[in-house]
């Protein structure tokens, strides 16, 4: 049984959704964040893919495209000791308090 992300040829996958939509600012920022992390040699595309593939079937299906990205980026930053989960949570709380996110 292939992993959840390995979808080629799955008969239950349904048709591909080809509709386009404008990217939200947080999605653009998430994309830019990975570019910056790559530029600083803190993270590779292969690490992003591996972390996304490791989300597990529940989160993989539930999360949107860039939600998977930001979840994976957070995980790799924590793995590498660049950020702690507490630091990320505290920053999100502070931003919520400022109503900026």
């Amino acid at each position, binding site marked *: 049984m292939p992993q959840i992300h390995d979808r*080629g040829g799955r008969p239950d996958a349904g048709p591909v959704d080809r509709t386009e939509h404008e990217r939200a600012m947080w999605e653009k920022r998430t994309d830019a964040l990975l570019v910056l992390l790559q530029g600083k040699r803190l993270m590779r595309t*292969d*690490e992003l893919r591996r972390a996304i593939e490791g989300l597990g079937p529940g989160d993989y299906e539930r999360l949107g495209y860039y939600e998977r990205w930001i979840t994976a980026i957070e995980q790799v930053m924590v793995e590498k000791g660049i950020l702690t989960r507490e630091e990320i949570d505290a920053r999100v709380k502070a931003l919520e308090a400022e109503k900026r996110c």
Partner: protein
Amino acid sequence: MLTREGATKAPRFKAGDRVRVRVALPAGHCRTPAYIRGKSGTVEALHGVFRNPESLAYGGDGLPKQPLYLVRFAQREVWGGYGGAPQDQLLVDLYEHWLEPT
């Protein structure tokens, strides 16, 4: 083939060679889709040699570099009961360590 990051052995296959994709179920990250494992095709081209994503995905250096090939498969041979045109082809990028000669 000598690369800046160190010696890499010469590519094992060339355009026109018949190859079979290894059947394996690695626990970790790989770039070989499950549906193509065990299928036979023909090497179309050598893309070049690249760091191994199966190592890079875990913070490794990806060395030694692996040759990456473009491999052509007949759709009829990939999918059981394929309903499309008989001449339909499928092109897949595959790293050398996933290929064996047939």
